[in-house]
């Protein structure tokens, strides 16, 4: 579904990703783990087209998407929950969730269906729906960002440390919810970065370890976990 091929990214002249290749298969669930500063966020941003590549390619559905502008990737069914939440403060939680789907031009009924699905999956969001996003707590914001990514991620969902700052009980519930999601939509591919790999053990089928911008371990690591 989504693939990075020998991707090289420099930020401010310094190499941040060096020759990173990873594959997110259709319906797969891939974890990208690594220490702080290893390059996880950067890898996700590269997939989303939010920063320029110095080398390598991004493939979506097997097609070269390196030159596809960032805003088009969402249209290809890729949802993204950034690490620092980045909600639209003056909108309500509901409006935040709806916006990407509306931008895609989905039918009203379809949007409603998806919103209901998300509210069932993440019931906390339903109670927050009419609050302004500006006032949310750290964890609440994280949940909304997750929900927003799920609204459009019909093919792939990229989650940057989705459980960071969540109370453990919630983190576990959400991990379970993601599992459910995959069960009911077997086509959706999940990519989760995490600096705390314990949470992911039961969820993922492939794990890539990234270190100083290089993939040091893949696949094999999953067997260990």
């Amino acid at each position: 579904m989504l693939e990075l091929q020998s991707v090289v990214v420099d930020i401010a002249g310094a190499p941040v990703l060096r020759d990173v290749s990873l594959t997110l298969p259709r319906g797969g669930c891939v974890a990208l783990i690594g220490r702080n500063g290893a390059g996880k966020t950067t890898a996700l941003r590269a997939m989303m087209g939010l920063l320029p590549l110095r080398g390598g390619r991004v493939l979506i559905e097997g097609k070269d998407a390196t030159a596809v502008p960032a805003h088009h990737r969402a249209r290809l069914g890729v949802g993204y929950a950034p690490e620092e939440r980045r909600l639209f403060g003056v909108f309500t939680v509901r409006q935040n969730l709806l916006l990407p789907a509306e931008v895609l031009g989905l039918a009203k009924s379809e949007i409603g269906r998806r919103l209901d699905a998300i509210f069932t999956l993440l019931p906390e969001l339903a109670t927050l729906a009419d609050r302004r996003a500006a006032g949310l707590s750290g964890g609440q914001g994280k949940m909304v960002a997750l929900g927003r990514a799920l609204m459009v991620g019909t093919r792939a969902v990229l989650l940057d440390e989705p459980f960071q700052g969540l109370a453990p009980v919630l983190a576990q519930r959400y991990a379970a919810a993601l599992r459910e999601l995959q069960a009911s939509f077997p086509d959706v591919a999940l990519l989760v970065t995490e600096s705390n790999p314990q949470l992911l053990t039961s969820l993922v089928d492939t794990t890539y370890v990234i270190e100083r911008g290089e993939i040091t371990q893949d696949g094999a690591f999953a067997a260990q976990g």
Partner: protein
Amino acid sequence: MTALLEARGLRLAFGGVKAADGIDLAVMRAEFLAIIGPNGAGKTTFINMVTGYLRPQGGTITYEGAEITGRRPREIVRRGIARSFQLPQLFSEHTVEENAALAIAARQGIWSPFVPLLRPAWRDEARELLDRFGLLPLATRRADALNEGTRKLADIAMAVALKPRLLLMDEPTSGVSASEKMAVVETLARVLREAGVTAVFVEHDMDVVARFADRVAVWSQGRIVALGPPAQILADPVVQREVIGIERHA
């Protein structure tokens, strides 16, 4: 032990949301108090009220016997209360080292226009501090070029640089990778203990709580629902169900 900080009946609501609904809490001198609780329970709000970012709608806060309710952050910091942030607050155009040096300068007085910020004494102190947090290799990196986890550490380092007597930390370990977390907290705890600093920290990682907290306060919907030593609290079935979840790893 005497109470260093005492909150009585703190109340604060945002519209209909009660973020603090009668908080009573006494923080003892030199203890490490952990705050846990579901998201949106009002943990950050409590820290914000103590440090003067938010003014409570009711109740009082006393620090070292003096009331500090509703005072401005600046005054509160000068009394020896420092904090770190859930979302790191760094000076993005300064290097990590300069960030730390600014905090040191803030402690020692910044009103000297004739000596550079990175004067030897301050630079040495900054570097020593950064070293403890494993940040020394990044000392000359600009803060906006840091990844999230590192930002978090730098943020805590800046609060520590103020040499407070009471340090409030908002999720100090969230975003810090699992492999580094324990080592960092270990060092932090040592530094604080050595200096006799009282610490209040919001935490979602129960391993950290179990290992470092002297007492744990459990927050829920703007109230403290349980308070006690970690062994007792973490074993409490209600707390387990509401906060910790069943799958806690040993």
